């Protein structure tokens, strides 16, 4: 005796199903079911996960979906399950889901009877859930049944469900009657909502949330009992007549759709290949063309061999279309002068170098392609392409237009319950006061143990009931990781040759004109489908803009390829920690690492990018690596296999790929096991867990003769990577941009800062910080002025006679940076552009002249006056503003009159702005000032006696007590540094790093959390050129800079 469950909701029927698809699959297997259908409501989003769990098991997975059609005559909705009989049926099902989803707003669906009638479903089966007698009378139910049956002539059943609820007998009676009238069979189903009866509380919570109420108020909207679970066969035998159970097996047998077929028949659009070429041939042809461009003096034999090997592998795995698609997108970007750069497992190959997908030169780095595409793991290649952030939309539009909306859509991102949302929602369902829940969330210590949690819940008065406090904790634990809704992936496109909607349902995204498929990247990967990531990167915009400025100066185009690689001066700069504005290595942590790691070549940068991450830091890999770098000859390896994996990082695993590879060579993991480990690591931060792998890893290592200490250490290091490890294949591409941006900063500082400032907001630093850094690098920065500035920041040639710069070998330090009108708050972009375009040769003569020529509104002019941008037209900003205000009441009177400003109203006694006022006004309307730094002013006024500035600290011996003061520009409490707060202070000479230990922070919460100008007494510590102040006493001096609008970047 066996059974097939044919109606089963997973938690991908959001706020309804109370079990993960894999839990349902595993339970069905354990109970000895013959088949299991995952039938989420108008969705197949849970199918790939159930398939991953059932692929090689005796339980057959049936794919289907549950629908409710709006009824035509005020009756109950028509409820039924559609099961796919085969690949065609699956396509029809996906089309139906797509239609229902596309007709409704994000997250919902709408299908009418007409939709169903017009939609071919001849390769599908239908299980009708007939209405209860209290919902509809026999006649109308029969009519509904007839109508539905007519549409599913291939297979139509009525389902019977016994959940032992009130009114069940009359319902079964009705079903029998309908079945005999319709001459169709009855099939037993369980209306399963959870894998185990224990999930009933969670199911009740989900129901309450769906109805936006509490469990207590949900009343009869909750199920009467917890019988909607996967019940043991013995129970089912008691409940259902044998014929009904047999029918379920018969239906399951007729469903032969195997999801693996999707991968086999999935094709990339063929129109990328010109007639007369095969895909393989064409890829070879393009690669050859690229070779000639990349290696004008002939391809080195080693590279030739590499290319041949890669092409062979691509051909063997039939990935040509994937590479051709990426090439096509990149080619489009090039034609529009959009800078882009590929990264990821297959991006840094010789083929991709030739195709122009990456600039990482295979001669320069010894990156083995095979490391990235694995033959045995069978995982699809992964190439992410970054584009300039301001122009990515053009690329996305190109993809839609090139392949058509029916063939291209974004992958989904499954938004899941995180601790915060879980606590909020469970609290809501249990009727806790939302304010108290928020307060609880603010004060929560996530590392607390379970009992402390309960105590916190009781302490915060969320409930007085101890049992409910326990229940709350259990429910939160259980709901963590549950999907909440589908959202769009940041840029992962799925493109297919056939209509996408026959492959996977497509639904609407929140953004108009965007559509997403129902699967996320893990689902795509497990089904073997490929996606192309089209991502946005601000640094590419900045680099492109800087290169354009340099090209304009030179009168000849300068491209990424023209930048000379491995220039020691660039590395010298980085080694000194001078990296503000440089891609990836500009954060405080990275900046502190630079002088310690002292990168001297490209591969050092690859390591630098990857090492300052929570993974390596938590796995305690930073110090060992730095120590080994100091004396590399002392490094030993247990065996040659491990040497091969770890040699390039001196025996310390730094990259995610190394952790995986180690599991294979040190613990003997098979390719499949390693792949599962990789997925668990990726999911670890949300709901994955590495403990299941612990036994296998440790035992594997012991069996291979490694010591227990070694095994434990390695396991700990692998754990450290969980979710936070950085892949080498991405670091390699990023490192290139690190080098390029550092090169720009070193050789073309004005263009570099100009490009950065014109690409804001991006990066780690505010325009104010960037401008200060520029000035410290001898870049002359000129103020915003309507007679000189454009909307964007520009470079101006300095009058060479006045230059005293010793700029012999640096070519464009003669340029100064003119700040643009884009900094002026409240000025609209169009008005700003007109000011530049309409400006006469001789400049604007007066504010009236400016107002008329550039067609400025009062608001625009006021913004300009406030920003001091009218300095060349008026004696000071106060007078300028007084005159402007004159016009605002009667602008009509002044049209046509010119030179009204030549006869100004009698002057009034307005105060002349002082330095402090100007400074405040600058910060207020520009966010930065070119005048003296506020700290310089305060110092001059004698407020900061005994305080040293950032420059003076360089001369202080370590261990000395010092006093410093500065504007607070950042407070960080990284999770990897237990309880320590890092505060960054800014003064007129630079930044000061302050370290506040937990005890100090607790005692002085107020100044630490609220001060904008902070005075610190502490001890100076120094490691090389890195200086930290270990804070003792903190003092809030904010009153000295009242109203000074400097934003702190808080990360808490």
């Amino acid at each position: 005796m066996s059974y097939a469950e044919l109606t089963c909701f997973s938690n991908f029927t959001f706020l309804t199903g109370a079990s993960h698809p894999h839990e349902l699959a595993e339970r069905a297997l354990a109970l000895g079911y013959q088949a299991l259908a995952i039938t989420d409501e108008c969705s197949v989003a849970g199918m790939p996960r159930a398939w991953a769990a059932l692929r090689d098991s005796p339980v057959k997975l049936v794919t289907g979906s549950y629908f409710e059609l709006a009824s035509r005559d005020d009756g109950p909705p028509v409820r039924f399950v559609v099961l796919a009989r085969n690949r065609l049926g699956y396509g029809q099902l996906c089309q139906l889901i797509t239609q229902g989803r596309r007709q409704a707003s994000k997250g919902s669906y709408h299908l009418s009877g007409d939709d169903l009638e017009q939609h071919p479903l001849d390769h599908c089966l239908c299980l009708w859930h007939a209405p209860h007698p209290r919902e509809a009378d026999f006649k109308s139910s029969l009519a509904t049944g007839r109508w539905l049956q007519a549409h599913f002539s291939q297979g139509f059943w009525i389902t019977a469900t016994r959940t032992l609820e009130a009114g069940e007998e009359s319902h079964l009676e009705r079903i029998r009657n309908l079945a005999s009238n319709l001459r169709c069979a009855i099939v037993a189903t369980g209306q399963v909502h959870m894998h185990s009866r224990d999930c009933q509380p969670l199911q009740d919570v989900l129901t309450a949330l769906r109805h936006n109420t509490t469990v207590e108020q949900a009343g009869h909207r909750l199920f009467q009992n917890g019988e909607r679970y996967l019940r043991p066969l013995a129970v089912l035998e008691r409940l259902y007549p044998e014929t009904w159970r047999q029918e379920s097996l018969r239906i399951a047998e007729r469903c032969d759709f195997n999801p693996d077929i999707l991968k086999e028949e999935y094709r990339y659009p063929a129109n990328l290949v010109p007639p007369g070429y095969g895909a393989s041939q064409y890829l070879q042809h393009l690669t050859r063309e690229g070779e000639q461009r990349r290696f004008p003096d002939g391809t080195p034999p080693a590279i030739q061999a590499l290319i041949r090997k890669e092409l062979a592998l691509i051909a063997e795995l039939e990935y040509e279309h994937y590479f051709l698609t990426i090439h096509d997108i990149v080619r489009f970007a090039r034609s529009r002068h959009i800078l882009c750069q590929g990264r990821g497992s297959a991006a840094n190959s010789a083929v991709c170098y030739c195709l122009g997908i990456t600039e990482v030169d295979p001669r320069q780095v010894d990156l083995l392609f095979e490391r990235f595409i694995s033959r045995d793991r069978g995982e699809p290649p992964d190439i992410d392409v970054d584009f300039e952030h301001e122009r990515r939309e053009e690329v996305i539009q190109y993809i839609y237009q090139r392949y058509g909306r029916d063939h291209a859509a974004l992958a989904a991102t499954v938004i899941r319950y995180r601790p915060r949302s879980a606590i909020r929602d469970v609290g809501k369902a249990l009727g806790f006061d939302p304010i108290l829940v928020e307060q609880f969330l603010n004060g929560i210590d996530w590392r607390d143990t379970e009992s402390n949690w309960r105590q916190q819940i009781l302490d915060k008065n969320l409930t007085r009931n101890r049992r409910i406090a326990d229940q709350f904790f259990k429910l939160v634990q259980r709901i963590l990781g549950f999907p909440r809704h589908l959202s769009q992936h940041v840029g992962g496109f799925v493109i297919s040759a056939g209509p996408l909607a026959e492959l996977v349902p497509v639904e609407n995204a929140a953004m108009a004109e965007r559509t997403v498929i129902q699967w996320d990247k893990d689902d795509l990967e497990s089904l073997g489908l490929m996606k192309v990531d089209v991502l946005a990167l601000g640094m590419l915009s900045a680099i492109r803009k800087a290169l354009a400025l340099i090209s304009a100066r030179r009168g000849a185009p300068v491209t990424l390829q023209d930048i000379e690689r491995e220039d020691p001066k660039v590395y010298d700069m980085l080694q000194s920690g001078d990296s503000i504005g440089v891609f990836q290595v500009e954060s405080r942590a990275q900046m502190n690492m630079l002088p310690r790691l002292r990168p001297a070549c490209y591969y050092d940068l690859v390591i630098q990018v990857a090492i300052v991450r929570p993974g390596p830091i938590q796995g305690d890999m930073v110090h060992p690596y730095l120590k080994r770098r100091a004396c590399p000859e002392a490094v030993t390896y247990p065996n040659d296999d491990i040497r091969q994996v770890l040699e390039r990082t001196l025996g310390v695993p730094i990259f995610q790929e190394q952790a995986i590879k180690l599991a294979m060579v040190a613990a003997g993991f098979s390719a499949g096991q390693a792949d599962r480990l990789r997925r668990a690591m990726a999911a670890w931060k949300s709901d994955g867990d590495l403990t299941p792998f612990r036994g296998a890893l440790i035992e594997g290592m012991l069996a291979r003769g490694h010591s227990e200490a070694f095994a434990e250490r390695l396991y700990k290091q692998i754990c450290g990577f969980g979710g936070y490890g950085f892949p080498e294949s991405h670091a390699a591409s990023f490192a290139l941009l690190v080098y390029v941006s550092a090169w720009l900063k070193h050789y073309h500082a004005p263009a570099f800062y100009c490009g950065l400032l014109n690409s804001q907001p991006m990066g780690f630093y505010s325009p104010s910080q960037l401008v200060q850094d520029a000035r410290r690098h001898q870049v002359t920065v000129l103020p915003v002025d309507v007679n000189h500035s454009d909307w964007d920041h520009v470079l101006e040639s300095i009058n060479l006679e006045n230059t005293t710069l010793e700029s012999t070998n640096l070519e464009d330090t003669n340029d100064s940076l003119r700040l643009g009108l884009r900094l002026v708050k409240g000025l609209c972009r169009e008005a700003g552009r007109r000011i530049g375009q309409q400006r006469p040769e001789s400049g604007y003569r007066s504010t009236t002249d400016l107002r008329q020529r550039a067609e400025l509104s009062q608001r625009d002019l006021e913004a300009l006056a406030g920003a001091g941008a009218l300095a060349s037209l008026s004696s000071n900003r106060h007078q300028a503003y007084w005159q402007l205000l004159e016009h605002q009441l009667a602008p009509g009177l002044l049209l046509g009159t010119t030179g009204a400003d030549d006869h100004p109203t009698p002057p009034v006694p307005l105060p002349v702005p002082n330095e402090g006022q100007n400074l405040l006004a600058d910060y207020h309307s520009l966010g930065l000032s070119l005048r003296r730094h506020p700290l310089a002013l305060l110092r001059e006024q004698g407020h900061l006696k005994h305080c040293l500035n950032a420059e003076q600290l360089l001369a202080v011996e370590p261990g000395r007590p010092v006093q410093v003061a500065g504007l607070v520009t950042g407070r960080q409490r990284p999770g990897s540094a237990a309880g320590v707060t890092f505060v960054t202070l800014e003064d007129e000479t630079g930044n000061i790093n302050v370290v506040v230990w937990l005890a100090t922070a607790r005692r002085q919460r107020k100044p630490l959390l609220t001060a904008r100008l902070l005075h610190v007494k502490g001890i100076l510590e120094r490691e090389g050129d890195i200086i930290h102040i270990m804070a003792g006493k903190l003092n809030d001096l904010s009153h000295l800079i009242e109203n000074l609008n400097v934003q702190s970047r808080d990360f808490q």
Partner: protein
Amino acid sequence: MLWLYLHFPHLLLDHLARSQETPAAMVTVASTSQQVLQVCPLAQQQGVQAGMRLKTALALTPELGIVHTNSTREAELLEQQACWLYHYAAQIVLYPPEGLLLEASSLLRLYRTLPALWQTLENALASRRLTAWLACGITPKAARLLARQNLGQCSDDHTLLAAQVQELPLPATGLETRPLERLARLGLTRLGEVAALPPRELARRLAPETLAHIQQILGQRPDPQHCWQPPHRFQQRVDFMQEVEQSQGLLFPLQPLLNELEEDLLWRQEDTDRLQLTLHHRDHSQQALSIRTAGPEHRASAFVELVRLHLERQPLPAPVIAMTLTVTRFLPRGTTISRDLLGENEDPKEAWQTLISRLQARLGRGALRQLEPQADHRPEKAWTTAGLQPQRRKPPVTQNPPPRPLWLLPSPQPLQQPPQTWLSGPERISSGWWDGERVQRDYYSALLTSGQLAWVYRDDQGHWFVHGWFG
């Protein structure tokens, strides 16, 4: 003219603190934002400031009490203050949510000197544990602005007061954001600097309303005020930060209300013979207690005894979050009145209330109930005897109730013998895990050997019970 303004910087919090035996740090927050508005002194000591983000405030004081502002409540509360202030001053203007303006010139005749008046007010505030910043001004606006800045001085020297106003920083002048921004861009920081500019030019460049506002502050333009009229009743409310669960717990916070009432009655030269005490609950509807004295009375000590007796008889149906004391019936001193059981000289609604409360007082509160269905799968929770007022926020009850026996036993009884015939079942009910009264049962209807038609069930331990009888 001289005006005196009282600014209550944290009235709502003072009010809440009155009912607390141990003070706690509290702030008010608008329900729509995460910004701290008012800060009690205790929270101020810990570094919390108005305008701070709530998150920062909680980081400074994790145990912070958070009160949501409510403009109606605050307006009522301000009026409550005006009521007692009316005993000292006849011309009061309300500036909700946090200020009261007094016309002081006429008061000076009564109190002779300003310091005497000032001290009287300070004492009255202190006895009520209220914080208010006082300030004098030659115009209503001047007094108000100075008080809000806590710059008030006990002086009626017009020159000094005028000079003080000139020194006011512009952001403290109550102007709108837009003109403030403009004045700041002109480099002006104090009211005096603006006042020195030619008024015509100023009106042209800023809005005429801005000029009017400034002139009203300076007394160059009339600023008519509308005096408040006290209502002919006494009403005071007290709110609790922590819910009160025992009726005895109401006596402590009730004392100041009764004191206030005594003072009010003394001032009115009147008595009363009935108090209305309304208890507010979080989810329950409010509960009105009508308390009658034996005869006309005004002493707080007499009232408190009566209320104590009344409360002892009345267990609280739910925790209390607030309490209002209302007196609407005032009797001239020395009158006696006849007692009428049904209160014929009252309006019918009040008479009904009186009847109910009397019946409840006689029979005990639990004696008066009405039946109601309730949406719950558990049979014993599927109906309820609610209080007499309908409850708010009920879950909808299904249209088609499941078959249930008309006679449900108050508590299930063990089944003595196996039934003669099983008629229907099982119906499985598993529900109610959230309130600690989970049931897991299989119900059957069965004919017992005694010939009775019973509704029986088996619980998850395998024990059998009779839960009800069918017809």
